[in-house]
């Protein structure tokens, strides 16, 4: 069997007196550095009546700060030779810059300035509401399968507002957002003690630590909100929802299952990650082989952990999702039956040793590839540190996956029970009313 090398990523930690956690990861393979800031607030924490607010606020963090006029953030990062972005997840919001190493101090300055004193104005808020609405038109309203399944599946599987609502937000609620809302949100959630700063790439640790202190030490200490629990009971029956979409040409299915709490042990969660690979990674995986090739029921099928397909990217509760695209002449129930048969078979027999070895090798290789992109590695380090207090996962995961036994994967398969899952059925709607689907009544029986 192929020997899988162990990944090496150097990690150092600091905590500033204002509570900001700092992870430094030097790597001199290219003259580039990346900086990530992860704030411990995502769209699950946004208030009722303000759907989409966490993401809207992420946009506002680019609109200037005390030392940086509007547009200056973009210009300074890019004229230093770098790029930037941010993204909003269920449990956190991240920001990054990747720049040539000569711009290390400048990038730290830019992040510190907006952590200390962002400039929130009514004019910028209105402008970014318009931009976010265009983003939603682009990715959801004007597009077939828009928001499938990350927006459309959660309201079928979950009952509570934090877990079930649309993280992109309703237009009316985005439009209702005020400068006052922004100030309150920033003061509560964007405290330095509620964030992790990650610096990785081509720098000397001592010098970088000194620069981090220079720029972040005087971000005032503020109280850190108590971490909320978003726990809710498992569904007590299968929940089905049929969605008619005038834009889609082929039916699609999304199955949602609850994952175990990663805080109870990474192994318990990762068994499902291995299970997803056994089910759908490559032509020889169980669901591909059976549903795509042998039975020819579906065009494409995929299984993954996490709302956006990244494992360990959220706290509890988290979701395992199987998505399917199939021709109109195949009944959705046939797809469900074949899927359930394969899962049941796996629960009974577990994957074979060769199957597990292949998954271990491919999984490790995928992680190496991700880590080879400095910005991906930086964002993974920050997210793992923030959510799980364990930046080391970025190197430990392959060994954890490699140690997974057949029985653990079989047990995970046994837990994918049809009587506690969500099934979202998307079907083409004939007729050309351009309106999107009404998701105000989740859980409606198909």
């Amino acid at each position, binding site marked *: 069997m192929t020997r899988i090398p162990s990944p090496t990523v150097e990690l150092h930690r600091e905590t500033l007196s204002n509570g900001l956690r700092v992870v430094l990861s030097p790597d001199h393979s290219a003259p580039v550095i990346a900086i990530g800031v992860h704030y411990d607030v995502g769209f699950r924490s946004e208030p009722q009546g303000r759907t989409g607010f966490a993401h809207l606020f992420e946009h506002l963090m680019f609109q200037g*700060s*005390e030392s940086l006029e509007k547009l200056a953030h973009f210009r300074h990062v890019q004229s230093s030779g770098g790029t930037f972005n941010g993204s909003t997840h269920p449990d956190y919001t991240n920001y990054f810059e990747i720049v040539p190493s000569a711009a290390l101090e400048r990038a730290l300055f830019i992040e510190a300035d907006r952590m200390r*004193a962002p400039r929130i104005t009514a004019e910028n808020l209105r402008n970014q509401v318009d931009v976010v609405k*265009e983003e939603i038109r682009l990715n959801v309203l*004007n597009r077939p399968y828009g928001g499938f399944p990350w927006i459309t599946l959660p309201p079928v599987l979950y009952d509570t507002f934090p877990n079930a609502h649309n993280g992109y937000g309703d237009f009316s609620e985005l439009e209702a957002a005020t400068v006052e809302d922004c100030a309150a949100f920033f003061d509560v959630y964007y405290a330095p003690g509620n964030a992790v700063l990650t610096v990785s790439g081509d720098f000397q640790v001592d010098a970088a630590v000194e620069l981090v202190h220079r720029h972040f030490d005087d971000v005032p200490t503020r109280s850190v909100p108590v971490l909320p629990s978003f726990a809710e009971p498992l569904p007590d029956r299968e929940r089905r929802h049929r969605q008619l979409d005038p*834009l889609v040409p082929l039916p699609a299915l999304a199955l949602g299952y609850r994952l175990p709490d990663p805080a109870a042990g990474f192994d318990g969660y990762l068994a499902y990650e291995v299970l997803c690979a056994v089910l759908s990674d490559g032509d020889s995986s169980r669901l591909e082989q059976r549903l795509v090739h042998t039975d*020819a029921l579906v065009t494409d099928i995929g299984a993954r952990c996490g709302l956006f397909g990244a494992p360990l990217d959220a706290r509890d509760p988290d979701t395992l999702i199987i998505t399917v695209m199939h021709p109109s002449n195949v009944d959705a129930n046939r797809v469900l039956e074949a899927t359930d048969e394969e899962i049941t078979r796996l629960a009974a027999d577990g994957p074979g040793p060769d199957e597990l070895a292949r998954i271990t090798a491919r999984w490790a290789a995928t992680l190496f590839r991700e880590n080879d992109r400095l910005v991906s590695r930086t964002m993974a380090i920050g997210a793992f540190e923030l959510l799980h207090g364990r930046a080391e996962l970025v190197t430990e995961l392959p060994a954890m996956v490699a140690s997974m036994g057949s029985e653990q994967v079989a047990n995970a398969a046994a837990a994918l029970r049809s009587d506690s899952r969500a099934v979202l059925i998307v079907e083409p709607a004939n007729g050309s009313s351009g309106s999107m689907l009404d998701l105000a009544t989740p859980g409606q029986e198909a």
Partner: protein
Amino acid sequence: MLHRSAEQIGRTELGPRPLPPLGPPRPSSAPAAVDTVLDSGLRVIAVRRSAVPMVELRLEIPFGGTHPTHPARAELLAMTLLRGTPRRDRFAIDKVLAAVGGDLAAGVDPEHLSVSGSALASGLEVVLDVLGDALVSASYATADVVRERDRLVERLTVNRSQPRVIAREALQRRRYGDHPFAREWPEADDVAAVTPAALRALHRRSVVPGGAVLVLVGDIVPASAVEAVASILAGWQSDHPATELAALPELTGADLQLVHRDSAVQSQLRLSAQAVPRNHERYPALQVANLVFGGYFSSRWVENIREDKGYTYSAHCGFEYTRYGATLVAEADTASEVTAAALLETRYELGRIAVTPPDETEVDNARHYAIGSLTIATSSQRGLTGHLATLAILGLDLDWLLTHPGRLQGVTTGQVAEAAAEFFAPSRFTGVVVGDAKRLADPLAALGGVELPPLPS
């Protein structure tokens, strides 16, 4: 809960602070590399980049065709090339690749058949073996072809329902009419008619090494990697070279064409003009001019239609390179109610950059971005592989990549102004607007320069 006001949050006692200067630049070091042409005519570029114990692979074979049904055969060939040989069926291929952490996937466009892959570096020979086996003796078994035919028809249906694909096909027709370059996706009827025998014939004629390039980047010793390629792909030979796509006509300016899409809530603006390719002496100046216009976030166009007006989420103008030339393509998606206004601003910015040239600060900012972003983009194995493959198609190499920062440094503000004036004149552009014609026709007619469709009922 009590909190500060926005004004209080945005101010500190110390007040605004000065931006720290940049530190001394650290140049990238030139990696060990071999660039050679094998007896078969296959060019092999192998580069050592050892940050992770992986190897990336990219094969580009010129794959032009003139027959209207070529795209259907080409697409199906790409879908089935790696799906079975007399030695291994599709499941065995997947298993042997997975065992070395490997993946191989083929794709096709009007110019090239491409195979991309990666594996643990220790598995390079396994990946080459799978690839070589397919290049020499892909089976195109009837069952596989029939199955992939159905899947392709289904995927095409989904694809053609996507606004960006609809806009792309409209733009290609507007720019190139019936030229084979405009056929990026096959027609479903043509796909249904493709036979395994037709794929085998296309393979014999076109999956050939002469004129193709294979790029390998990773934790490898370049000379040994080239030897491995020469030995493992030794059986891949042909008595004729690969088929280049016929040269493209130069783009000329024309009215935009409004293309109706029923019930669209957002429109696609797609404007395009002839440019010069990377190996042209004026390219660096045009690259900088394009950045200032709309090639990055801090550009005039993005700052206007996104950050000032809120008309779009993303606007971008970039180069599209082909074997013989390059074009500029400007893209923005914008709500129906502001589409005409966004087009007006777009034309204004095109005209403005042509007659109000970028100043020294704009040029320097764009220049630094071009240099830095190239360093960043080529700092990963995958990024470097993609860049080298694209350059190789133009006959360029690693040396071009390493010397390009110097060319960008040498560009003057005057040269950028000249390039901006010549290439961005609004009259040089053609293109399409895809959206709900019932809502767009009147305001676009008022603006002028837009060819309207017959109004849908």
